[in-house]
């Protein structure tokens, strides 16, 4: 029951949906997790996650398009690193979600307090 209103309250703005969609895929989240420790070459990600190179490259392309990872060349190697600031829309979404929950529970709290004041009178 208490999940109710926030589904509406946390509707996401279209400008952020790309980042949401990019990280809605489990493999891509694993790639992001793998990059938390620091910059990595495609080959290292392939080894770490036991995904195929084409898979990893495809996911990295999607993540690059929404700015969640950035690529630089070092000789022949291409190194990818996380751009944590681009995760801000997700944090903002969570903050809205928290607000919606708090609003609901605060209303319940006020109602409970009123009931108890009424009972004491």
């Amino acid at each position, binding site marked *: *029951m208490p999940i109710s209103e926030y589904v509406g309250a946390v509707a996401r703005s279209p400008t952020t949906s790309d980042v949401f969609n990019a990280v809605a895929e489990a493999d891509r989240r694993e790639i992001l997790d793998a990059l938390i420790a620091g910059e990595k070459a495609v080959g290292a990600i392939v080894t770490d996650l036991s995904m195929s190179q084409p898979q990893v490259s495809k996911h990295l392309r999607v993540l690059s398009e929404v700015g969640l990872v950035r690529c630089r060349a070092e000789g022949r190697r291409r190194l990818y690193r996380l751009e944590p600031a681009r995760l801000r829309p*997700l944090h903002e979404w969570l903050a809205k979600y928290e607000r919606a929950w708090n609003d609901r529970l*605060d209303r319940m709290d*006020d109602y409970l307090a009123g009931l108890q004041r009424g009972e004491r009178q």
Partner: protein
Amino acid sequence: MTPDRHGSAVIELPNDLDVVVTREFDAPIELVFDVLTKPEHVSKWFAPRGCEMKECSIDLRVGGNYHQVFVTDGGTECSFRGTYLEVEPPTRTVETWVFGGRPHLDAVETVELHEAHGVTTMTTTLTFRDKASRDEDIQGGFDGVQTSFDQVEDLLSSLLDPRGTVSG
């Protein structure tokens, strides 16, 4: 005078499928349970400000259904329904949860109450459906805009995993 607890809910995403919300109330456990499960109470606090409660039915027994509908000031109806799976007053209920506008976002909700020193702690756990059925859904008719709520939960829990150091 008890301290104001407004804004004190703690929301955690412990794994890919669960959302856990914890909140304390300065009230006895029986009263908190009633306020959560009796239509005459729920109808007083359930709808957000500016919204009007249109329906509030609760058949509080195993297999019984509940249905809540409120209307926003813009005229949009929000409907929530489900079926009780467990009912153990005043400590616990487990129920299915379906939001009318997005039937794919079904979840199982567990509400647990615990009282100590006059303070009742409510722990609500929402468990979204398993990944297999979710993925099946996504393949069936995936629409980018409607990227399901449970997916977003999923990704948030991954990104906010305490072992990670990702921050905005």
